[in-house]
């Protein structure tokens, strides 16, 4: 509950219009154009170098195999990140204490760690001779490295911070008064959560999920270190591209183009439903 004065302040907050920022002038316009070209040219380069005369190469069995593996693992990693990341984000957003701040730093760490280091660290913990991995393999026969599960674990490790931070920001921005109103209307804690908080935050969580998914899809370093590069079982698209680069450049370009095309299509399809669309909304 905020006092009436807080509300008045909130009401008085000026509406930021796009005109406010669009005063870049000539120099700004030129720099922005360079930025667009900077992003666009590599994509044009890919398209220019692609083996268009051999369309079969885009649908070669190894490509399809790696693509399906990539999509499957990234999706699994994103949902894994959401499953454990959402409760964590809720805990982080609930209060600001020293322990929570500490945990937040921990969660943020994978963002600044080189992915190879993540892979080495994962091996040290969950590897065949790792801290947890050793006993787990001996007692339960669970071996993560060099398996599909290992790919998912490596991708989830690097993708989870993206989900947690985005979800926490959304939770923090949630206006608790909606939950209060629901309570006065007779809604139990669970009902308030189920029919007010979650649905109102769904777009935020979905956007967080997509960002985590995109990060997992492009994951290379941690995956190759922890899960290896076994064709047919752990060779995801980025790994396949790297391998192809050494022997068959047109194949690498074809793989890259397929990966860009598929992820761009998926992002575009989700855009209307889930992703923030700037100020027009």
């Amino acid at each position, binding site marked *: 509950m905020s006092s009436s004065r807080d509300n008045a302040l909130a009401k008085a907050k000026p509406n930021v219009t796009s005109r406010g920022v669009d005063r870049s002038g000539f120099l700004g316009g030129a720099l922005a154009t360079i930025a667009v070209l900077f992003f666009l040219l590599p994509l044009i380069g890919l398209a220019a170098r692609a083996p268009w005369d051999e369309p079969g190469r885009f649908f070669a069995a190894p490509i399809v195999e790696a693509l399906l593996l990539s999509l499957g693992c990234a999706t699994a990693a994103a949902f894994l990140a959401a499953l454990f990341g959402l409760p964590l984000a809720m805990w982080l957003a609930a209060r600001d204490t020293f322990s929570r701040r500490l945990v937040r730093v921990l969660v943020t760490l994978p963002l600044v760690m080189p992915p190879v280091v993540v892979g080495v660290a994962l091996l040290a913990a969950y590897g065949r001779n790792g801290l947890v991995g050793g006993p787990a393999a001996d007692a339960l026969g669970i071996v993560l490295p060099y398996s599909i599960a290992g790919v998912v674990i490596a991708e989830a490790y690097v993708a989870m911070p993206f989900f947690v931070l985005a979800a926490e920001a959304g939770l923090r921005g949630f206006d608790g008064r909606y939950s209060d109103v629901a309570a*006065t209307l*007779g809604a139990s804690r669970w009902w308030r959560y189920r029919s007010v908080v979650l649905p109102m935050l769904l777009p935020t969580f979905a956007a967080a999920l997509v960002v985590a998914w995109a990060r997992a899809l492009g994951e290379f370093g941690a995956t190759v270190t922890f899960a290896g590069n076994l064709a047919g079982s752990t060779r995801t698209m980025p790994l396949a591209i790297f391998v192809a680069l050494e022997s068959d450049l047109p194949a690498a370009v074809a793989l890259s183009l397929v990966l860009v095309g598929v992820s761009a299509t998926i992002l575009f399809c989700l855009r209307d439903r889930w992703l923030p669309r700037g100020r027009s909304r």
Partner: protein
Amino acid sequence: MTLDLQFRLERGALELAVDLAIASGETLAVVGPNGAGKSTLLTAVAGLLRIGEGRIEHAGRLLDGGPGAGFVPPEERAVGCVFQDALLFPHLTVLENVAFGLRARGVERPAARQRAAERLERVGLAEQAGWRPAELSGGQAQRVALARALATDPAMLLLDEPLANVDATARLELRRELQSHLTEFSGVRIVVAHDAIDALALADRVAVLEGGKITQVATVAEICSQPRSRYVADLIGVNLLRGRMAGDRLVLPGGESLVVGAGYSGEVLATVHPRAIALYQQRPEGSPRNVWRATIGSLESAGDRVRVQLAGQVPLVAEVTPAAVADLELGVGGEIWLALKATEITIYPD
């Protein structure tokens, strides 16, 4: 059935102390300056905030007995709340918003929608049932919020500045509508109001809350005729003086005195209507017993009148016509004679 409030609570810099009883079928307006604790009071009654000590009881049922004692959470209190921002759930349609409380209480969807549709009809928004809250005007949103609050047939209706964010034209009509909904509702009604007209139009009784304390609880008529604080006096637009009777004179704390007539004694309050104060360029000769010279502090237009702030012996506000301002050549800083008949001063015990 009454709502008994007798509690204290601290929240930030605010120390709220309340001792009030509100009967079913009665509308109590809570007025007071910003930050006086009006909204906090409602929040405590709704159960969204726990009290520090004391008790909140409705119809003999203890809702909050302070720390360690019983506490009924908001969802079990049978309250209906309307806040100044309507706070309609943006992801639900208007109809689903109104049906929300019924659904939360376990009413099946078809029945809840049926009853919600009836409620919407009563606030005149049946056609907007399928709309999203973002498509409604401010006044419409508050009507939906009211329908949503009433849909669960609560025992208490709590309105927190329901007209604050409604534009002036819609306000008049919404106030009238609110009035009829309030009279139809048989439970306890509390309306927090910032605007004097809202409070006086909607309420049976008025509680004045200043700095976390209740400074006056009285009927609307009494509040208007015998205000007890500067805040209320300003709200209803009269001058308020506090002093001590000596014979037929009222002696103010500064030592100045006014002739007010015999028949009173001790500590008293006096009100003077701004229109009862007459202004002259020359010292007036005649019946008024109180005549003195004052400096004009400020002039401000108030509708078809001009309010003249008078500094000097006794600080007062006079109301004159714009024509008089011109005739008397009134200007800020200028000197003027003023006259006040003893019979225009209303005296009542402090």
